[in-house]
């Protein structure tokens, strides 16, 4: 029986995530359109590499930056919802820092839009306060209180 477009797109997202998690950036990029758009709703003044990215080259540079800082990437994806040309994933992400082998663990939601069987847009929402604390390896609360 032929797969539905939802099943195909869901499989394509899993394929992309698997490729990225094993560091195969070119295979992950091959799942994307040439003008792929990437947007993370996260504090870009603190995490400047998470600025919006347009096109494969800009996305390649972002993913290379991530892999230059982390030696291991794992995902657990408890929720995937697909409808038509859109797929949403809720993921637990685990990134191991190259600098000290600590694991940065955070939840993220990614909304994918497909065009012609390729990912044309990725929009992420992250629990960014927690992510920043883990990346900084310090609590933000005392910094806020100290500024008052």
């Amino acid at each position, binding site marked *: 029986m032929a797969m539905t477009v939802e099943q195909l797109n869901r499989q394509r997202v899993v394929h992309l995530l698997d490729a990225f998690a094993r560091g195969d950036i070119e295979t992950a990029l091959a799942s994307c359109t040439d003008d792929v758009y990437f947007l993370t709703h996260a*504090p870009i003044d603190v995490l400047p*590499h998470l600025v919006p990215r347009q096109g494969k080259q800009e996305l390649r540079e972002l993913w290379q930056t991530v892999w230059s800082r982390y030696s291991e990437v794992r995902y657990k994806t408890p929720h995937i*919802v697909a409808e038509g040309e859109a797929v*949403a994933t*809720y993921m637990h992400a685990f990134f191991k820092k190259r600098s000290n082998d600590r694991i940065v663990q955070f939840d993220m939601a990614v909304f994918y*839009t497909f065009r012609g069987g390729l990912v044309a847009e990725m929009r992420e929402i992250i629990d960014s306060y*927690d992510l*920043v604390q883990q990346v900084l390896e310090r609590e933000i609360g005392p910094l806020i209180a100290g500024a008052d």
Partner: protein
Amino acid sequence: MTEHSLWRFSRALHRAINDRDFRDIEALIDEDVEWALYGPIDMFPFLGARQGKDAVLDVIRQLADNFQVRRFDRESIMLGVDSAASMVRYSLTALDSNKPISLRVAQFAQFRAGKLISMRVLIDTFDLVEQALGRAIHLPKMTSVG
């Protein structure tokens, strides 16, 4: 065609938050519901994980105590058979300060027999904290470690 459970739940949730009318939402939450709305719970006690209907209703009451929904726009929505994912832009008013708060929220809901059994919500929490404080949090740029 039967209406998807998400629409009933969404209407009831907004009625609960804006009108403090909890009758509809009570009927749409499973006794064993799992709920997670992650963020800094020291600043926002209604964030965090909850288990069970009473605990979730308590969170919704706290949301109603703290916020009014002025507007919401669904930017993305995907409906499965008993599941739904959406990205929603909310314009809220914080009731204690009358401050406007604008949030983009990812919601993942699962239903069984028309009732909510799981809800996971993600927010750009750093942005939420800055809006609640009314100022930017100044941290060093993580150009080499982030």
